[in-house]
């Protein structure tokens, strides 16, 4: 049994008589030590999914279906008191903006020790000692002196290190990092990702990395889920996803990333159109309005994740699309090099151009 098993998780928001279908049935498994990326654009439901798992959705949101099984317990039906013991203790979270995710009126030491004292029953002295070594672990110089400092006395990158130290303080089994590097500049991003990678490896934690940045998952995650309009549209081992993307949305994401190793000088190719207005439950492919490959099927029927070629288990490559992107278009887009000996990648169904 996997450590964390998410099945058909659905989340809705109710605002002023409107219902927003933020997450519409996502499923995945997480084993100890797994590194999982969830990629998608703003508003696709990736952050909301992680908040829903921990039961800390904003007041307007509610889980409308599915199960989240952790260690044999369904988190979605647990009484709040029991769930509280799992939050921060077994499953911890690092948030996007280190400028706003730390409490400005409490010292960093206080914010670090409170989880330790709540979950691990440490006394003040033990917790302070532990907090010092935690700051040290995440690479903050003069860790012990800095416990008495307030968040505003730290730089952005250092604050995110504090956020990470807070999250790993109780040695959680699962660490959810929600856009942990988005608010940081590029050099700091690399340091923070390196830190996360090291910590996950050393502590044997499982990591769920939520981001809009394909470059971030590329370096950290073994497996990646691509999310669009509250559903997973493609999931594959990260290397496979980059080499052989099948969903037009994934391809669009890859094409909109500037590449240093581009085959020829080409303009960036953004995805046209706007994300789906999520005020109704999707009944067809949500990406169809923005998709060059859409057919009548796309407009009428909701595609589900289906396996590509023979690979199963950890190597499985699944895509939810009626018309996966054909090989030659990947080549044309510069994502794949032309096949050397006419070997074609196995695709799902026939390759139908638009």
């Amino acid at each position, binding site marked *: 049994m996997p450590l964390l098993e998410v099945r058909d998780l659905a989340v809705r928001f109710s605002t002023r008589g409107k219902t927003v279908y933020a997450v519409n049935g996502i499923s995945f498994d997480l084993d100890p030590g797994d590194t999982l990326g969830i990629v998608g654009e703003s508003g696709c439901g990736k952050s909301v999914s992680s908040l829903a798992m921990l039961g800390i959705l904003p007041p307007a949101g509610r889980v409308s279906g599915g199960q989240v099984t952790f260690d044999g317990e369904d988190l979605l039906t647990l009484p709040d008191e029991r769930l509280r013991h799992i939050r921060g203790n077994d499953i911890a979270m690092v948030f996007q903006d280190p400028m706003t995710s730390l*409490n400005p009126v*409490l010292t960093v030491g206080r914010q670090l020790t409170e989880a330790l004292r*709540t979950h691990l029953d440490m006394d003040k002295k033990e917790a302070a000692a532990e907090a010092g070594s935690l700051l040290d672990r995440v690479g903050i110089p003069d860790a012990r002196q800095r416990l008495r400092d307030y968040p505003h006395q730290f730089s952005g990158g250092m604050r995110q290190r504090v956020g990470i130290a807070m999250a790993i303080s109780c040695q959680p089994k699962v660490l959810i990092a929600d856009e942990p590097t988005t608010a940081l500049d590029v050099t700091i991003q690399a340091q923070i990702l390196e830190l996360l990678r090291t910590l996950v490896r050393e502590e044997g934690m499982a990591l769920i990395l939520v981001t809009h940045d394909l470059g971030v998952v590329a370096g950290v995650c073994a497996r990646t889920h691509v999310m669009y309009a509250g559903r997973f549209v493609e999931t594959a081992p990260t290397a496979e996803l980059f080499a052989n993307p099948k969903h037009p949305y994934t391809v669009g994401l890859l094409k909109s990333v500037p590449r240093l190793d581009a085959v020829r000088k080409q303009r960036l190719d953004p995805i046209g159109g706007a994300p789906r207005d999520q005020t109704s439950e999707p009944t067809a492919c949500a990406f169809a309005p923005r998709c060059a490959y859409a057919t009548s099927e796309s407009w009428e029927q909701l595609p589900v994740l289906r396996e590509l070629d023979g690979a199963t288990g950890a190597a499985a490559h699944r895509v939810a699309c009626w018309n996966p992107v054909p090989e030659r278009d990947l080549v044309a887009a510069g994502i794949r090099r032309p096949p050397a000996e006419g070997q074609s990648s196995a695709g799902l169904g026939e390759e139908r151009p638009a």
Partner: protein
Amino acid sequence: MLRYVAKRLLLLVPVLIGLSILVFAYVRALPGGPAIALLGERATQESVEAINRELGLDQPIFVQYLRYAGNLIQGDFGSSVLSRRPVVEELLERFPATVELGFAAILFAVLAGIPLGFVAAKRYQGVLDNTSLVASLIGISFPVFFLALIMKYIFAVRLGWLPSIGRLDITRSLEHPTNFYLLDAIIAGDGAAFVDVVAHLLMPAIALGTIPLAIIARITRAATLDVLSEDYVRTARAKGLTTAVIDRRHILKNSLLPVVTVIGLQTGLLLTGAILTETVFAWPGVGTWMLNAINNRDYAVLQGGIVFFAFLVVVVNLLVDISYAFLNPRIRYQ
């Protein structure tokens, strides 16, 4: 910090000088004068002039001010025209009553207003939230003196639960070393007197504290609503802390920042309310003293009273600024 306090207290000097000039000019701009007040409307021209000469009011106004300022520097606020007693002496006698009343009113407003606003925010748009909204609007729009009269009618006249005037039952004897009656009762170790003082204090304090209560509740609610959606509250929840700890440590501490400022401002406004409340409840404080002074054009008393109020407002706001530094680590006064 000490240097900051010293600087702020030093700034008090120009404030008080400016204020003394304004007040001095203002009280003399009132129609009539002490002579008319003393002698009545039918006084002869000669007797009015005699009194004015005696009081120095026949001099040009800047001469009067310079003489007044000169006395002020020596701590002499002049004497009341009516009682002939030094202003300082009367002020010392009366200010404890006003401070005691004001303190009780603000205490009531803070102790009731902050929890009320906080709970209203937590139950945003719930029954309690909406009720408190309506109640605060009523509280804010109700004139202090009218509320005081209604309370007096209900609780003193109709129900007879509370005394209607004064600070202490006249049949009770209590030593007054400090003139803060609560302190006096404690010093005397007189439990019954203490209860009596509290009973006398209750209605005026509530009447006076109602508007600040409503405003503090509103501000607390708004600030708490802001804080509730802050990222760090989500972080605290993700840590698995108990609701009580999140409320107290993470939410309340942040939402109190604007509330503290408002408490300072309200204390200033409270003093105007004190004049009305003291009048209704025959409270022997600075408020009634000044009201009498206005009626009698008792210039020295009026000047002394206003300068005292101004001093109080500045000191309270200084205290607010200092407490702000304790609540908000991002502010450190150099």
